[in-house]
């Protein structure tokens, strides 16, 4: 299986913008998620991203195609990084480009919302207290 939406390497956002933009596009909207140094009051040192790779790739492709069919003028690229990321590193980048900015913003925003809802990717936070799988209740501190 070829992975177009998942990578184990740092994301080059300048390149992503260049690859998404067409000469007819005047508006480029980018969203990037970065590992931040805190979450729910805990300090965070790094995050390990894991995925059900084959399904995550399909889900990401499905969301991209769905948004393109809803907004036929938009060019859209999504890439999610996996593995161990330290504070400040980029975990996801989404670029939506269009003739007009309203549509570029809307598609970029909607893409991250849909991705967060359904793509089988998980993060394990490493803080000085230990490790936590985000979203799993209570008993999962190890």
């Amino acid at each position, binding site marked *: 299986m070829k992975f177009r939406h998942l990578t184990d390497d740092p994301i080059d956002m300048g390149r992503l913008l260049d690859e998404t933009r067409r000469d007819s596009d005047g508006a480029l909207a980018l969203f990037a*998620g970065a590992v931040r140094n805190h979450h729910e009051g805990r300090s965070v040192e790094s995050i390990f*991203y*894991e*995925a*059900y790779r*084959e*399904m*995550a790739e*399909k889900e990401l492709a499905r969301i991209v195609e769905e948004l393109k069919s809803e907004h036929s003028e938009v060019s859209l690229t999504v890439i*999610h990084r996996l593995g161990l990321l330290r504070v400040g590193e980029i*975990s*996801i980048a989404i670029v939506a480009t269009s003739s007009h900015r309203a549509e570029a913003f809307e598609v970029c925003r909607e893409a*991250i919302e849909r*991705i*967060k*809802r*359904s*793509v*089988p*990717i*998980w*993060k*394990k936070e490493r803080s000085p207290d230990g490790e936590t*799988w*985000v*979203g*799993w209740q209570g*008993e*999962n501190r*190890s």
Partner: protein
Amino acid sequence: MQIRLLCFAVLEEIAGTREQRLEVATGTTPQDLWAMMRGKHPRLSSYVTPPLVAVNQEYAPPTTRLEDGDEVAFIPPVSGG
């Protein structure tokens, strides 16, 4: 019949393995597999209903009737992005 059961993230840690090949009876559902998981792993005992389920890499109801060769995955709450 034989199926492949995949567990990810916290469920992989609890199960001690990501992938299991299981011989199951005809008519088995993901819900049945979850009951088996709960029986084996006390940390799951309070989770009566399974997390999300995927069959052959697509979300599916936990009551889906599995077929020989299916790939079943338990998907704990996702947190990508």
